[in-house]
C-alpha cells in the first residue's frame, strides 16, 4: 500500500498541477482569449487560433529537471526543432513567398503614385523606434519593437529574431494581435484626421494592366529595392519571386503550391511555435507590457502618417487625380485588412464609393515598404 501511495505521489509530482504558477494561469487565459477572439469573433482566425493554441501548449508547466525534453526552449525537443524556423528566421521568407504568389500588384502598377503612401506609413516604425529608445531600450531592441508598426507579422519575427531574440515572443504576439485589431485601431484615427468632404473624394478607376507589366514588376521591384537595401533580400527576394511565379503564367503549379499548401503549412508552424514560445517565465515581464503599448502607438502613428501624407500629396494633384485620404491607412501592410477598413469607412460616407481597389495599392506597397524598412534596420543595427 505504501509502495502504491509513493508511486502515486511521484506521479503527482510529474503532473502540471505540481508546477503551475500564477504566470502560467495568466498565460493560459491569454491563450483562451486569443482562441475566443479568433473563433467567436473571426478576428484573424488563421493567426489567432494557432497562436492561441500555441500559448496553451507553451504554458503547460512541467518539471524541466526531469529531462522530459518537451519544452520549446529545450535543445533537441520536437517543439524546439519546429521553433528553429522562427529562431533562425526561415519561416518568414517562406511566408513572403506565399504572399508574393497570392498578391496582385495591378492596383499599384496602374497608379504607381500610391507607392508613396506605402512609404509614408513606415514612419510608424521609426516613430516607435524613437519612443522605445526614450523608454530605455537598446537601439537593437528599439528597432525590433519599432517594426511592429510595419503591421507585418513575418517581417516582425524575422527582424526581432536577428536584433532582439529575447523579445521575439512579445513582439510577434503584439504584431499579430494589432493586425487582428486593425478594425478597432484605425477607424478613429482616420475619422479624426479627415474632413467629411475629403472622405467623399472619388478616385479615377484604375486602368487595365498588361501581363507584360505584371511580369516586369517583380523583376524591376527586386532589382531596385534590393540594390538599395540588400539586407532586405530574404524577404523582398521571396516576395518578388512568389509574384513572378504567379504572373509569369508558366509556373502555375509552383505558384499554387506557394500560395496554398506551403504558406498554410508554414502559417501553422509559425503560429503554433510563436504562441508556444510565450512561456510565462519568458513572457510575463514589464518589457512585454511596454512592448504592447509601443506596438499600439506605432500602429496609430503609421495610420496617421499614411492619412496625413495623402492629404499633403493632394495639395499637388489636379482635382481629377486627387486621392481619398481614407486609403492612407492601408499604407501599413496588414494585407488585406487595412484595405478593407478603407472600403468600409468609405462606404459609410458614400454608399457608392468603392475604395477597395484603390486601397490595395498602398496596401501592397506597405508590404514592400516594411520589408525595405526591416532591411534598413538590419543593415544599421545588426
Amino acid at each position, binding site marked *: 500500500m505504501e509502495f502504491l501511495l509513493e508511486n502515486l505521489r511521484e506521479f503527482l509530482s510529474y503532473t502540471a498541477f505540481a508546477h503551475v504558477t500564477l504566470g502560467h494561469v495568466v498565460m493560459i487565459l491569454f491563450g483562451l482569449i486569443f482562441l475566443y477572439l479568433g473563433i467567436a469573433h473571426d478576428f484573424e482566425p488563421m493567426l489567432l487560433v494557432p497562436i492561441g493554441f500555441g500559448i496553451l501548449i507553451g504554458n503547460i508547466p512541467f518539471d524541466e529537471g526531469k529531462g522530459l525534453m518537451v519544452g520549446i526552449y529545450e535543445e533537441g525537443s520536437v517543439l524546439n526543432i519546429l521553433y528553429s524556423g522562427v529562431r533562425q528566421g526561415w519561416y518568414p521568407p517562406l511566408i513572403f513567398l506565399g504572399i508574393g504568389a497570392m498578391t496582385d500588384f495591378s492596383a499599384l502598377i496602374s497608379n504607381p*503614385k500610391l507607392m508613396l503612401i*506605402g*512609404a509614408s506609413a513606415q514612419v510608424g*516604425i521609426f516613430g516607435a523606434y524613437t519612443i522605445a529608445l526614450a523608454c530605455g531600450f537598446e*537601439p537593437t531592441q528599439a528597432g525590433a519593437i519599432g517594426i511592429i508598426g510595419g503591421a507585418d507579422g513575418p517581417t516582425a519575427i524575422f527582424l526581432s529574431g536577428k536584433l532582439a531574440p529575447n523579445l521575439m515572443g512579445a513582439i510577434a504576439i503584439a504584431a499579430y494581435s494589432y493586425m487582428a485589431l486593425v478594425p478597432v485601431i484605425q477607424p478613429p484615427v482616420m475619422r479624426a484626421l479627415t474632413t467629411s468632404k475629403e472622405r467623399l473624394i472619388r478616385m479615377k478607376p*484604375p486602368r487595365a494592366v498588361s501581363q507584360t507589366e505584371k511580369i516586369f514588376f517583380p523583376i524591376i521591384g527586386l532589382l531596385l529595392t534590393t540594390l538599395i537595401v540588400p539586407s532586405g533580400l530574404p524577404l523582398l527576394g521571396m516576395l518578388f519571386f512568389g509574384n513572378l511565379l504567379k504572373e509569369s503564367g508558366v509556373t502555375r503549379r509552383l505558384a499554387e503550391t506557394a500560395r496554398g499548401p506551403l504558406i498554410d503549412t508554414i502559417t501553422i508552424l509559425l503560429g503554433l511555435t510563436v504562441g508556444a514560445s510565450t512561456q510565462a517565465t519568458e513572457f510575463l515581464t514589464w518589457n512585454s507590457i511596454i512592448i504592447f503599448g509601443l506596438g499600439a502607438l506605432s500602429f496609430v502613428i503609421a495610420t496617421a502618417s499614411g492619412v496625413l501624407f495623402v492629404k499633403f500629396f493632394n495639395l499637388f494633384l489636379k482635382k481629377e487625380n486627387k486621392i481619398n485620404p481614407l486609403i492612407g491607412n492601408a499604407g501599413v501592410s496588414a494585407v488585406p485588412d487595412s484595405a478593407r477598413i478603407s472600403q468600409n469607412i468609405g*462606404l459609410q460616407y458614400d454608399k457608392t464609393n*468603392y475604395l477597395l*481597389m484603390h486601397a490595395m495599392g498602398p496596401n501592397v506597397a506597405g508590404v514592400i515598404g516594411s520589408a525595405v524598412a526591416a532591411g534598413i534596420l538590419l543593415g544599421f543595427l545588426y
Partner: protein
Amino acid sequence: MRIFKRGLNLFLFMTAVICVQAQVTKLQINEIMVNNQGDYVDHYGQNSPWIEIYNNSGASTNIGGCFLSDDLNNPRKYPITKGDKNTIIGPRQFTIFWADNNATRGTFHVNFRLDPAKENTVYLSDASGKLIDKLIVPAKESALVDKSYGRKTDGSQELGVLAKPTPNINNAFADRDAANEKFKENDPTGIAMSVTAVAVVFLALILLYVCFKYTGRFYINRGHKKAVAAAEAKGGTVDQSKIGDTDGIPVEVCAAIAAALYEMQNDIHDIEDAVLTIEKKAVSYSPWSSKIYGLRQTPQVNTKR
C-alpha cells in the same frame, strides 16, 4: 580489369587527399591576443597570449598534422598533434591555441610565446609545410592590453583591433555590439536614424514609382497606337476622348467586385462547403446503412495457383 581497379583506387585516394587538402586550406588565423593580462584564462588559470583558428568551410576539418610557428624560417616549429579528436574543427567553428611556450600542457599549448614588445607574426602551415595563412600583429597593436587583433568579420580580409576580444565566437559579434554602442552614443534619440531610414524607404519606392510611371505611359501610348491603327484599318476614326475609358476597368466591374467582397466580409454568403450535413434520405435503403456493405466478408483461401 585489375589495372582498372588499381587506377580507380588511386584516383579515389588522390581525390580524398585533394579534398582534405582543400579543406585544410580553408583554415584561417582569425584573431590573436598578444598582451593578455586579465582576459581569457586557460585551463591552468593562466592569462597567456592566444591564437584563434577559424574553419572557413562548410565541413569539419582536422587541424592535426598542421604546423604553427612565429618564425618564417622555421614554419614547422609547433606540430599540432595528430590523432587528438579535439583538433577537429566543425564547419565555421573555431579553436584556440595558447602561445605560452609550454607545449607539455597539451595539444593546444604551443612551444613559442608571443611578445607584446614587438611585432608578432603567426604562420599556419599544412602537413607538407606549405603556408596556409599568416597574420601579422603590428607592434603597436601587440602592446595593447587585453585587446585582440584580427579579422573584422570571420574569414574576411579586413584586419584591425576588435572592439571586444571574442575567443571561440564570431568576431562580428563584437562589431554588432559596437554598432549598438555607436548608435547609443551618436544618436541617443533615434531622430537621425529615423530620418535616414524613412528617406531610404522613400527613395526605394520613389524609384519604383518613377519606373512604373513611365512604363505605364509607354503601354498606354502603345495601346492608343494599336487602337488608332485598328480603326484606320477598318476605315474609321477613333474618338480620342474615349480612349482613356477603354483602358480603364469599367466602374460597374469595380463595383461588382467590391460588393462581392463586402458581402463575403459580412458573412452574407453561405459557408456550407466545410459542413458535413447528415440528413435523412427519402429512400429508405442506402448503401451507407447497409449491413451487407458494413460487414467484412469472410476471407477465403485461394486454392488456385
